[in-house]
Protein backbone atom coordinates (compact mmCIF):
# COMPACT_ATOMS: atom_id res chain seq x y z
CA UNK A 1 0.00 0.00 0.00
CA UNK A 2 1.17 3.52 -0.74
CA UNK A 3 1.20 5.53 2.45
CA UNK A 4 2.88 8.48 4.13
CA UNK A 5 2.99 8.63 7.91
CA UNK A 6 3.69 11.73 9.96
CA UNK A 7 3.50 10.57 13.56
CA UNK A 8 3.41 13.99 15.21
CA UNK A 9 0.39 16.24 14.86
CA UNK A 10 2.07 19.05 16.74
CA UNK A 11 5.69 19.92 17.41
CA UNK A 12 6.48 22.86 19.69
CA UNK A 13 9.97 24.26 20.11
CA UNK A 14 11.64 27.48 21.19
CA UNK A 15 13.41 29.79 18.79
CA UNK A 16 16.96 28.60 18.15
CA UNK A 17 16.22 24.97 19.02
CA UNK A 18 16.76 22.17 16.48
CA UNK A 19 13.73 20.82 14.67
CA UNK A 20 13.05 17.40 13.18
CA UNK A 21 9.70 16.61 11.58
CA UNK A 22 9.34 12.91 10.99
CA UNK A 23 8.07 11.27 7.82
CA UNK A 24 7.94 7.58 6.98
CA UNK A 25 6.56 6.13 3.79
CA UNK A 26 5.43 2.88 2.28
CA UNK A 27 5.78 2.47 -1.48
CA UNK A 28 6.68 -0.36 -3.81
CA UNK A 29 9.24 1.13 -6.14
CA UNK A 30 11.31 4.30 -6.08
CA UNK A 31 9.14 7.25 -5.09
CA UNK A 32 9.83 10.92 -5.30
CA UNK A 33 9.59 12.55 -1.86
CA UNK A 34 8.56 16.11 -1.10
CA UNK A 35 7.92 18.43 1.80
CA UNK A 36 5.11 20.95 1.34
CA UNK A 37 4.46 23.82 3.75
CA UNK A 38 1.39 25.92 4.46
CA UNK A 39 1.90 29.17 6.33
CA UNK A 40 -1.05 30.86 8.00
CA UNK A 41 -3.57 32.13 5.43
CA UNK A 42 -1.37 31.05 2.53
CA UNK A 43 -1.67 28.28 0.00
CA UNK A 44 0.17 24.99 0.09
CA UNK A 45 3.61 25.35 -1.46
CA UNK A 46 6.58 23.15 -2.13
CA UNK A 47 9.40 23.48 0.40
CA UNK A 48 11.86 20.95 -0.96
CA UNK A 49 12.18 17.70 -2.89
CA UNK A 50 14.61 14.89 -2.24
CA UNK A 51 15.97 14.67 -5.75
CA UNK A 52 17.27 18.24 -5.60
CA UNK A 53 19.30 17.67 -2.43
CA UNK A 54 18.83 21.33 -1.63
CA UNK A 55 18.50 23.37 1.52
CA UNK A 56 15.56 25.76 1.57
CA UNK A 57 15.15 28.31 4.37
CA UNK A 58 17.70 26.29 6.33
CA UNK A 59 15.66 23.07 6.05
CA UNK A 60 17.12 19.84 4.73
CA UNK A 61 15.70 16.36 4.28
CA UNK A 62 17.55 13.17 3.50
CA UNK A 63 15.91 10.19 1.91
CA UNK A 64 16.75 7.00 3.82
CA UNK A 65 15.57 4.11 1.67
CA UNK A 66 16.55 1.52 4.24
CA UNK A 67 14.36 3.08 6.91
CA UNK A 68 11.85 4.42 4.33
CA UNK A 69 12.07 7.84 5.95
CA UNK A 70 12.35 11.42 4.76
CA UNK A 71 12.65 13.49 7.93
CA UNK A 72 12.78 17.29 7.69
CA UNK A 73 15.45 19.00 9.77
CA UNK A 74 16.57 22.48 10.69
CA UNK A 75 19.37 23.19 13.17
CA UNK A 76 17.98 26.47 14.52
CA UNK A 77 14.23 27.12 14.35
CA UNK A 78 12.89 30.61 13.68
CA UNK A 79 9.48 32.01 14.61
CA UNK A 80 8.63 32.40 10.92
CA UNK A 81 8.98 28.63 10.52
CA UNK A 82 5.67 28.18 12.35
CA UNK A 83 3.39 26.50 9.84
CA UNK A 84 1.78 23.24 8.79
CA UNK A 85 4.19 20.81 7.15
CA UNK A 86 3.14 17.95 4.89
CA UNK A 87 5.30 15.13 3.65
CA UNK A 88 4.25 13.72 0.28
CA UNK A 89 5.35 11.14 -2.25
CA UNK A 90 4.70 10.45 -5.89
CA UNK A 91 5.67 7.78 -8.35
CA UNK A 92 7.34 10.43 -10.49
CA UNK A 93 6.51 11.72 -13.97
CA UNK A 94 3.30 13.60 -13.18
CA UNK A 95 2.01 10.95 -10.81
CA UNK A 96 -0.44 11.92 -8.10
CA UNK A 97 0.81 13.13 -4.74
CA UNK A 98 0.10 11.09 -1.62
CA UNK A 99 0.19 13.25 1.49
CA UNK A 100 0.66 12.55 5.15
CA UNK A 101 -1.67 14.03 7.73
CA UNK A 102 0.69 16.90 8.45
CA UNK A 103 2.61 18.23 11.44
CA UNK A 104 1.99 21.66 12.87
CA UNK A 105 5.24 23.30 13.91
CA UNK A 106 5.01 26.01 16.55
CA UNK A 107 8.14 28.02 17.28
CA UNK A 108 7.93 30.10 20.43
CA UNK A 109 10.03 33.25 20.99
Amino acid at each position, binding site marked *: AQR*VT*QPEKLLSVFKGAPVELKCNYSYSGSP*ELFWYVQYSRQ*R*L*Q*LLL*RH*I*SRESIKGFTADLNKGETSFHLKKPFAQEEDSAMY*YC*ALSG*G*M*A*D*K*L*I*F*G*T*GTRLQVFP
Partner: protein
Amino acid sequence: DAGVTQSPTHLIKTRGQQVTLRCSPKSGHDTVSWYQQALGQGPQFIFQYYEEEERQRGNFPDRFSGHQFPNYSSELNVNALLLGDSALYLCASSPKDRRPSYEQYFGPGTRLTVT
Protein backbone atom coordinates in the same frame (compact mmCIF):
# COMPACT_ATOMS: atom_id res chain seq x y z
CA ASP B 1 0.76 35.55 -13.23
CA ALA B 2 -1.81 35.01 -10.49
CA GLY B 3 -0.84 31.39 -10.21
CA VAL B 4 -3.55 28.79 -9.75
CA THR B 5 -6.94 30.36 -9.15
CA GLN B 6 -10.08 28.70 -7.84
CA SER B 7 -13.69 29.75 -7.56
CA PRO B 8 -15.73 30.15 -5.54
CA THR B 9 -13.85 30.68 -2.29
CA HIS B 10 -16.62 29.34 -0.11
CA LEU B 11 -19.77 27.41 -0.85
CA ILE B 12 -22.64 26.11 1.26
CA LYS B 13 -24.86 23.38 -0.14
CA THR B 14 -27.57 21.08 1.13
CA ARG B 15 -27.39 17.30 1.15
CA GLY B 16 -28.43 15.82 -2.17
CA GLN B 17 -27.53 18.89 -4.18
CA GLN B 18 -24.89 19.12 -6.86
CA VAL B 19 -21.88 21.45 -6.92
CA THR B 20 -19.34 22.63 -9.48
CA LEU B 21 -15.95 23.98 -8.52
CA ARG B 22 -13.63 25.73 -10.96
CA CYS B 23 -9.89 25.97 -11.39
CA SER B 24 -7.59 27.91 -13.70
CA PRO B 25 -4.04 26.57 -13.84
CA LYS B 26 -0.85 28.55 -13.64
CA SER B 27 0.25 30.01 -16.95
CA GLY B 28 2.15 27.45 -19.00
CA HIS B 29 0.71 24.46 -17.15
CA ASP B 30 -1.39 21.83 -18.86
CA THR B 31 -2.10 19.29 -16.12
CA VAL B 32 -4.66 19.82 -13.39
CA SER B 33 -5.11 17.67 -10.30
CA TRP B 34 -7.85 17.89 -7.69
CA TYR B 35 -7.49 17.05 -4.01
CA GLN B 36 -9.92 16.89 -1.11
CA GLN B 37 -8.67 18.01 2.29
CA ALA B 38 -10.90 17.14 5.21
CA LEU B 39 -10.39 18.91 8.52
CA GLY B 40 -7.23 17.73 10.22
CA GLN B 41 -6.17 15.58 7.29
CA GLY B 42 -3.70 15.87 4.47
CA PRO B 43 -4.93 16.42 0.92
CA GLN B 44 -6.32 13.29 -0.78
CA PHE B 45 -6.00 12.86 -4.52
CA ILE B 46 -9.31 12.82 -6.41
CA PHE B 47 -8.26 12.80 -10.07
CA GLN B 48 -5.96 14.38 -12.64
CA TYR B 49 -6.69 15.81 -16.07
CA TYR B 50 -4.31 16.15 -18.97
CA GLU B 51 -5.18 16.80 -22.62
CA GLU B 52 -8.84 17.06 -21.60
CA GLU B 53 -8.94 13.50 -20.33
CA GLU B 54 -8.97 11.95 -16.87
CA ARG B 55 -5.54 10.32 -16.54
CA GLN B 56 -5.48 9.12 -12.95
CA ARG B 57 -8.16 8.66 -10.34
CA GLY B 58 -8.02 8.22 -6.61
CA ASN B 59 -10.38 6.26 -4.41
CA PHE B 60 -13.44 8.46 -4.84
CA PRO B 61 -16.93 7.40 -5.96
CA ASP B 62 -18.40 8.20 -9.35
CA ARG B 63 -20.33 11.07 -7.77
CA PHE B 64 -17.08 12.95 -8.25
CA SER B 65 -16.48 13.86 -11.88
CA GLY B 66 -14.49 16.43 -13.72
CA HIS B 67 -13.72 18.11 -16.94
CA GLN B 68 -10.82 19.92 -18.54
CA PHE B 69 -11.32 22.55 -21.20
CA PRO B 70 -9.09 23.37 -24.21
CA ASN B 71 -7.60 26.30 -22.28
CA TYR B 72 -6.53 23.79 -19.56
CA SER B 73 -8.97 25.11 -16.96
CA SER B 74 -10.90 22.48 -15.10
CA GLU B 75 -14.12 21.80 -13.21
CA LEU B 76 -14.85 19.41 -10.39
CA ASN B 77 -18.46 18.26 -10.09
CA VAL B 78 -19.91 16.47 -7.11
CA ASN B 79 -23.42 15.00 -7.32
CA ALA B 80 -25.76 13.90 -4.53
CA LEU B 81 -23.77 15.72 -1.87
CA LEU B 82 -23.24 14.03 1.48
CA LEU B 83 -22.32 15.64 4.79
CA GLY B 84 -18.96 13.89 4.50
CA ASP B 85 -18.16 15.83 1.34
CA SER B 86 -17.61 18.94 3.46
CA ALA B 87 -13.95 19.78 2.97
CA LEU B 88 -11.44 22.10 1.36
CA TYR B 89 -11.05 21.25 -2.32
CA LEU B 90 -7.65 22.03 -3.74
CA CYS B 91 -6.66 22.33 -7.34
CA ALA B 92 -3.04 21.91 -8.38
CA SER B 93 -1.41 22.42 -11.75
CA SER B 94 1.86 21.19 -13.13
CA PRO B 95 3.96 22.18 -16.12
CA LYS B 96 4.12 20.86 -19.64
CA ASP B 97 7.67 19.68 -18.94
CA ARG B 98 6.97 16.23 -17.59
CA ARG B 99 10.41 15.63 -16.08
CA PRO B 100 10.67 13.64 -12.85
CA SER B 101 10.20 15.49 -9.59
CA TYR B 102 8.00 18.13 -11.20
CA GLU B 103 6.34 20.58 -8.86
CA GLN B 104 2.61 20.88 -8.36
CA TYR B 105 1.39 24.42 -7.73
CA PHE B 106 -1.67 24.67 -5.51
CA GLY B 107 -4.57 27.06 -5.55
CA PRO B 108 -6.09 28.61 -2.42
CA GLY B 109 -8.89 26.08 -2.35
CA THR B 110 -12.69 26.14 -2.23
CA ARG B 111 -14.25 25.51 1.17
CA LEU B 112 -17.39 23.40 0.67
CA THR B 113 -19.85 23.01 3.52
CA VAL B 114 -22.70 20.55 3.16
CA THR B 115 -25.60 20.99 5.60
